[in-house]
């Protein structure tokens, strides 16, 4: 060891390094600690072509409160404006609809898909989570959430347990969550499959001011380390929704005959969905690391007792540019088969028990392409931006709702202190 030439600098740098070591850490429970806070902040902008746009700032703070024990708080504010399809079809003449309040109307031009322009909402959601080791190789995550917008309130709690086996190469996860939602729509809950008035003279038939739904989700999952650089996860989730599951603002057009677009005497009916839904999903994800880059691929298969089945393919590739910069291209393809009660339009005299024209329950496919750029600003902070474009297309033969194009822009800043 040739230290003789560098003897003095050894002591000097050693003193500094020791001061850094001793100054940087504090045992839990004793005085001020460094780097036990992790803050994530982001702003997302979402815009559909000619329809809804939303701005969503999010702040998340995570604090280390013990050995492997954390408290996380998250605040989300969603501010939506714009118009959203109301479920009616375009016709050769202009159409008039009443707003949910029943106090005003709006008109859609001929040959244009009707959009309700009164879609203006702000939602605030908070959630808290407590992650704690319970025993060797067993940890628990307990959460609670509350979300509020002017016509919807949701309250929920969840508990997840994660067991490590096999020198922590295998993790078995099980979770349960429960949500209670209350919807109090403007103008009251419409009686399903009754007429939407086309003038303010008449009021819609209402079955009450508000209604509830309960949502229960159960998760079973396994995460397995396959090799030095590969990890896989398999999840099965089961969910059950009970209560008011209908969208109180959506309608269906009623035509005189199957082949025409001529509206019947009662041209619009409020939609009606079943009051229960049993959902299942199977999810598989693989993460693999190359020299420095990481690829992330997942597939999800979903099916429920409303007749909807869907496939989701998602791939991300993190490309390290060096110097703490990275690029992450993203591609996603979603394919959905419609709900049994989805109808593009209804025919007068042949009104089923359940019906909805919400295009999001129909046969559709969505393609998303995106790119994210991130950079490590310092040892304790990171900044990233991403842009995505989505194209949602109705599938199937015959008349369908038009495509919806959307874009997402998001900026994110995270830091430790």
């Amino acid at each position: 060891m040739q230290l003789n030439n560098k003897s003095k600098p050894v002591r000097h740098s050693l003193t500094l390094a020791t001061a850094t070591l001793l100054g940087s850490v504090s045992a839990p429970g004793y005085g001020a600690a460094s780097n036990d806070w992790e803050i994530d902040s982001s702003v997302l902008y979402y815009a559909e072509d000619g329809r809804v746009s939303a701005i969503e700032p999010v702040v998340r703070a995570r604090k280390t409160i013990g050995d492997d024990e954390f408290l996380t708080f998250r605040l989300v504010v969603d501010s939506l404006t714009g118009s959203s399809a109301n479920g009616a079809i375009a016709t050769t003449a202009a159409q008039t609809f009443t707003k949910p309040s029943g106090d005003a109307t709006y008109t859609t031009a001929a040959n244009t898909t009707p959009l309700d322009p009164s879609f203006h909402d702000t939602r605030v959601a908070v959630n808290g989570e407590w992650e704690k080791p319970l025993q060797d190789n067993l940890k628990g995550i307990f959460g609670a959430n509350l979300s509020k917008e002017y016509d919807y309130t949701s309250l929920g709690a969840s508990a997840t347990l994660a067991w490590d086996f096999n020198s922590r190469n295998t993790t078995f996860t099980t979770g349960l969550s429960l949500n209670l939602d209350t919807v109090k729509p403007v103008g009251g809950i419409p009686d399903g499959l009754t007429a939407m008035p086309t003038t303010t003279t008449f009021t819609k038939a209402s079955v009450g001011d508000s209604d509830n739904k309960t949502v229960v989700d159960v998760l079973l999952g396994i995460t397995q380390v396959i090799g030095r650089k590969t990890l896989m996860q398999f999840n099965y989730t089961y969910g059950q929704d009970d209560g008011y599951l209908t969208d109180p603002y959506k309608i269906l057009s009623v035509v005189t005959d199957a082949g025409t677009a001529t509206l019947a005497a009662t041209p619009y009916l409020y939609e009606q969905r079943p009051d229960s839904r049993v959902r299942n999903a199977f999810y598989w994800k693989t993460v693999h690391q190359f020299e420095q880059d990481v690829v992330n691929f997942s597939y999800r298969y979903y099916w429920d007792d409303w007749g909807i089945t869907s496939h989701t393919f998602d791939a991300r590739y993190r490309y390290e540019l060096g110097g703490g910069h990275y690029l992450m291209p993203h591609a996603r393809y979603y394919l959905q088969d419609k709900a049994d009660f989805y109808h593009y339009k209804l025919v007068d005299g042949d009104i089923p028990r359940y019906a909805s024209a919400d295009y999001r329950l129909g046969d559709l496919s969505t393609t998303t392409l995106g790119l994210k750029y991130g950079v490590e600003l310092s040892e304790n902070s990171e900044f990233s931006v991403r842009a995505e474009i989505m194209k949602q297309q109705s599938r199937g033969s015959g008349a369908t709702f038009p495509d919806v194009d959307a874009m997402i822009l998001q900026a994110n800043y995270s830091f430790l202190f």
Partner: protein
Amino acid sequence: MAPSLHIKPGNNFWSGHFHAMASPCEVLIDTNDQALAERLACIAQNEAARIEKKFSRYRDDNIIYRINHSAGRPLEVDAETAALLDYAEHCYRISNGMFDITSGVLRRVWQFDGGDNVPQPAQVAAVQELLGWHRVDWQRPLLTLPEGFEIDLGGICKEYAVDRSAMLLAAQTDVSFLINYGGDLYASKPRRSSQGWIIGVERPGQSTRHADINQPSAAAGNFELCRGGVATSGDARRFLLKDGIRYSHILNPLTGWPVRNAPRSVTVVANTCTEAGILSTLAMLQGTEAEAFLAGQNVQHWVLRD
């Protein structure tokens, strides 16, 4: 107060005694307030126990175990472990590879029990394949050890525990105290008498790793420690003797073989116990150059040779 903590009155001070990190530990508080002394000794004991539990390589429920059984996978470590790894990496660099926390695997072929079981070169070469910090992927907070590698923080842990305990006590009190974990010491400030704490430095061959406080006659020499850390490297019982050659237990990670002509012991005084410990270890690794190395570091030191 834990049953394993004994509080005793001394000559114008109180002391707390307990066992941790395979060593007799004591905390001397320059006060006549027994309750204060108990409280402080308890804090020190808890911190020593916490660090031992967290970094001991003999446990199967801590971060060291997880690291040493990570089978080549990346592992995210907490802030304190990350700080120690950063420090170990710094020491690796300034020592040009002689201080290496992955070198513990050499104990598989070297057992310094006073016998003559010197390993074959091929055995040493084989275990050399399983060490080398330059082959470790440390990118805070992710540590990836190649398969078969192990880290051992034993070379810094006890001194780190001394300094950490001292920090916690200093946050609680203005009184002078001396922490002594098996011969690794720290004194916070001069005592009420304006004197420092009298430390005895003993010759190897007598009782191991326990500085006799206030019993100067048993020691090779005393000195007064007003403020700072003291650490000692070396233990005469650990060696191998074969064909007339004495192999000291100070192993050079770069060769896998003992350092030639290492001193019997090196004691260093520095600002902190951790720094003193690294300097004494680095000095031992210098072999014949130990004295020259320490002379260049501007620290009070003692080097004892056969």
